[in-house]
Structure formats: C-alpha cells, structure tokens
C-alpha cells in the first residue's frame, strides 16, 4: 500500500493498459516512427551547413530536440486523451468503479500503464538512433544523450498528464479529441508565436525580466530550453547563453520544472476525478 493506494490494484490496471499497447502493436509502431525520424534527422541534421552524415552528439541532440518537440507531445496526447472518457463512453467505467478499486487507483493505474508504454517506445525509438553514433561517443556524449532521452520521456509524461486531465474533464471522445489537438497547437505552435508577438509588441522592453520565465509556462519550451542549456556548445548554438539565467544550466533546475509539469496536471485530474 502506498499512501492509501493499493499496489495490486495499480499494477492490475497498469498491466492491462501496457499489455493492450503491446497487443495492438502501438509500442512497436511508435518506436519504429521515432527510430526512423531519429535516424533520418541524425544523418541529415547538418544538411543546412552543406554536409550530411552522422556528426557530433551535440548536433544530433539539437536536431532530435527539434523533432521530439513536435512528435512526442502529439503521441502522448493521442495516447491518453480517451483514457477515462473512452471508458465512460464505452460503458466500462461503471463496471470498473464497482470493483474494489478507488478512482485514484484507476486513474493512476491507467497513467502508469500508458506512461510505461510511452517510455518503452521512446527508449526503443531513440535508442536506435544511438547505434550509429555509439562508436564515436565518450562518457560526456553518453551523458548528454541520456539526459536528452530522459527529457523526452519527461516531455511525453507531462503531455500524457495533460491528456489525462482532458480525459477526466470532457464528456465525450469527440470533445476530448478536439481538446487534445488544441493543446498540441497551443503549446507546440501558438505559444511561441504569441511570445514572439509580445516581444515585438513591447519592442523587447524589459523582455529579459519576463520572457525567460514565460517559457516555463509551456512544457514544450521547458524541454527545448533544458536541452539547449545542456552543454556550452548547444547553448551558444541556440544563442541562449546570455538570455537565460545561469542556474538553468543545472539540469536539476529545469528537470524539477518538467517534473512539476508532470505532477500538476495529473494532480488536478485526480482531484477532478474524485
């Protein structure tokens, strides 16, 4: 028992979700998509500088960050948007709630199972991109790549938390689909444009005071900044060296923000579902 939650109940619900994704080959499909994109981008990531081929780990991480920021939130939102509302619409929710199972265990069990599926697919997908680079990597390169993969997992889990919140709040799957797509557009596309618009509108006045903090309001931007700040080379490549607080160079600082982005929507979802 963990904080009033029964491990057996959590494991049973999570196990079913994970087995479902293995059985319907969701994990395999996502892993193949991530691996294919990752290998392509790792190979062709430096094309704008006139060369192709596998280059340094720093360039590869920069290229993969740009890939992951679009793809992983979408995958996570599509994975979780109907976790609860789907059960309600299919009519299985009442039966589940009649079991010796609390609502918190049902929600968290689903989150753990779906999260495990997402983590597996990410590890396999981005693990494949590491293969051609393995021979060139030193300890620092391996650490950098491991941090990148960990941040991709955190990005995925934060959007999965948002998806669970959507799934609890809306009444039917159609609305949940719409809400998930809106969230993706909002966080991945619109937020940065709005921020840019605000900077232009204010002619950049006092922007150094508020703009970096505004980035923390978007888990996709936290992920981008986390990876951009992970090495001196990348910091300079992204042109962020002087714009962002130095403390953000410590992975624990932005890592904590990413964890907060996982826990906060999940906490609200738990509160609403009770």
């Amino acid at each position, binding site marked *: 028992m963990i904080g009033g939650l029964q491990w057996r109940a959590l494991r049973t619900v999570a196990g079913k979700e994970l087995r479902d994704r293995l059985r319907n080959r969701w994990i395999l499909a996502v892993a193949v998509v991530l691996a294919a994109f990752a290998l392509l981008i790792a190979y062709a990531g430096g094309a704008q500088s006139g060369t192709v081929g596998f280059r340094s780990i720093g360039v590869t991480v920069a290229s993969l960050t740009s890939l992951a920021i679009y793809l992983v939130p979408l995958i996570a939102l599509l994975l979780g948007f109907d976790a609860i509302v789907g059960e309600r619409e299919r009519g*299985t929710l009442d039966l589940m709630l009649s079991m010796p199972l609390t609502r918190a265990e049902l929600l968290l069990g689903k989150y753990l199972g779906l999260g495990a599926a997402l983590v597996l697919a990410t590890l396999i997908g981005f693990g494949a991109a590491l293969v051609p680079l393995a021979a060139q990597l030193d300890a620092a390169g391996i650490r950098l790549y491991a941090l990148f993969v960990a941040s991709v997992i955190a990005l995925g889990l934060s959007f999965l938390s948002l998806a669970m919140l959507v799934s609890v709040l809306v009444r039917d799957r159609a609305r949940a689909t719409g809400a998930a797509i809106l969230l993706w557009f909002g966080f991945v596309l619109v937020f940065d444009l709005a921020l840019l618009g605000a900077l232009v509108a204010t002619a950049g006045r006092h922007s150094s005071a508020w703009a970096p903090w505004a980035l923390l309001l978007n888990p996709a931007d936290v992920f981008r900044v986390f990876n951009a700040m992970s090495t001196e080379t990348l910091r300079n490549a992204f042109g962020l060296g002087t714009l962002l607080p130095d403390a953000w160079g410590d992975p624990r600082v932005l890592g904590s923000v990413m964890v907060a982005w996982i826990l906060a929507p999940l906490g609200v979802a738990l509160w609403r579902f009770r």
Partner: protein
Amino acid sequence: MQHAIEVERVDKRFGAVQAVDGVSLSIPAGTTFGLVGHNGAGKSTLFKMMLGIEPVSAGQIRVHGTPVRGAAFRWLRQRIGYLPENVALYDNLSGLDTLRFFARLKAADARQCTDLLEQVGLAHAMKRPVREYSKGMRQRLGFAQALLGQPELLFLDEPTNGLDPQAIHDFYDTLAALKRAGATIVLSSHLLAEIQPHLDSLAILANGRVIAQGSVDSLAAASDLPSRARLHTRDADAARRIGQRLGDAGFPVITTADNVLTVSVARAHRTGLLPLLAESGAALVDVEIHPPTLEDLYLRQRHAGGHA
C-alpha cells in the same frame, strides 16, 4: 431481521434533474429483491448509488452496516457482484482474459474463471475475443464476471437482456443456488412476469420515488387487486349465458372469445363465484383462477400514482 442493504431518504440530483427523490428501502439479507419501474424511474441510478459508483446528493446508504463511501466499503466490494444494464466489456480481450482481469481486481481465485465460463456456457468461446461475441454471449460473460469471488451480494440490472430461453432458465437456476447459499440478490427488470416467481419482495419506482414496497402478495392484497377466472365452456352459447349470469351477480366479464370467458373476481367475492359456477353444471368444461400478477400490480400502482 438482518438487512443487507439500508437506504435512508436518499436523493440524487443531476443538475436540475431529480433522478432519485427521498428513497428509503430495507433489503433483508438472503432474499431476492426486485426494483421495477419505467424507463428513467431511477433504478439504475439507485443501483449505482448502492454500489458507491455515484455519490448520493442527500441521505445515506449502508451495505452490511457499512456506509458505501469510504475505505471499509472498498473491501466489501470483493464480496459484491454487479452486472450493469447493457454490460460493456473490453472487446480486445478474450472471455478468459476478461474474467482473469476482473478476478485480479477483486483478488478472487483466478482458477474459478474457467469453471465460471463453463457454468454460463462459454467454455467453447473462452479464447475468442469479446468483439466476436453475440449480445447474449456478452451478457453471459458479464454474469460470470458478477459471480467472481463467490459474492454475498449481487446487483443485476436487466440481467436476462439478450439471453435465449435455455440461458434464462440456467440463469435463474444459478440465482436459486446462490440464494440457498445465503446470497442477497437485487434484481431489476422490465420483464415483470419473468422475475415475479423469483422475488421475495420488491419496490416499485416512479419518477425517482418508491410508490410501493413489499412482497407481491402483500402489495396485491393492499391494492385489493382482483383475480382473473378463465372459464372454458362447452360452446359459445354457453359462454354467453354464463357470462350474462356472472355479470348480473357482480363479476364483470373482461373478455369473451368463442367458448372462453375471462371474468374479474374481486378478493372479497372469490368464494361467491364457486356456487355460481356449480350451477352452470355440464356447460362448464374447465376453470382456471389466476391471482393478480406483478404486471397488474405495477400498472395499478402507476395508475394510482397518476403515471399510467
């Protein structure tokens, strides 16, 4: 008498809609209790509140003395079986995997899954995915799920939906065996004639309120419902003559078809019918007396409540 379920002045509101309005019920342990009512009467909502799925807006529900919300009730659910109306299961799982999944959630012995599938007649299809099951097969699988963990309390909402006559017969045999073993069964159905022989007592719901509660016999007596006598006569002419005579004596004829008369017999006048029939002599071939049915009772109560 020990009560398995006690419902005290329970209300349930969904926004402006009052789904359940001041319902109080006591269901004795080890009996079969029926909840009957029109569509939208509040039966399923009451079921869900008794199971702790839906919170009550006001009032209190106790199952075996335990309030239905809270940690203690969670463990009690291991001994409760529930078959929802229009049961929905996971289409991608096989019948056996479905039962194993719910057995794990209920901490029930997984070895009973195959026995239960055999008991409900699904042994041959246990490895097939549920999406390939017919409606009746899904209903039987849902019933097997409700039986996991040898429940002491069963909630069955429209349990014979989609079942064939043999499966309905087997279903009620299983219920009888469970009742003999001491289980309490709460049953809801629109098929009043079908459930009547299996009920010890019932409550009739209309628009979220209990409009009558008790055994079928006691409610029929309280409602003063008449019995029906079907009289088979030698020929149509005899039927007409006997009908005329009974009508004059205060036994209204309900229908006449060829040589069969159906007569309404009020409780107070039952004995008065016999001498009149004896006088008919050889003109009368056979007599059937039908006491009031649950359907008669239901319609009377609904009518009395102004909902006919």
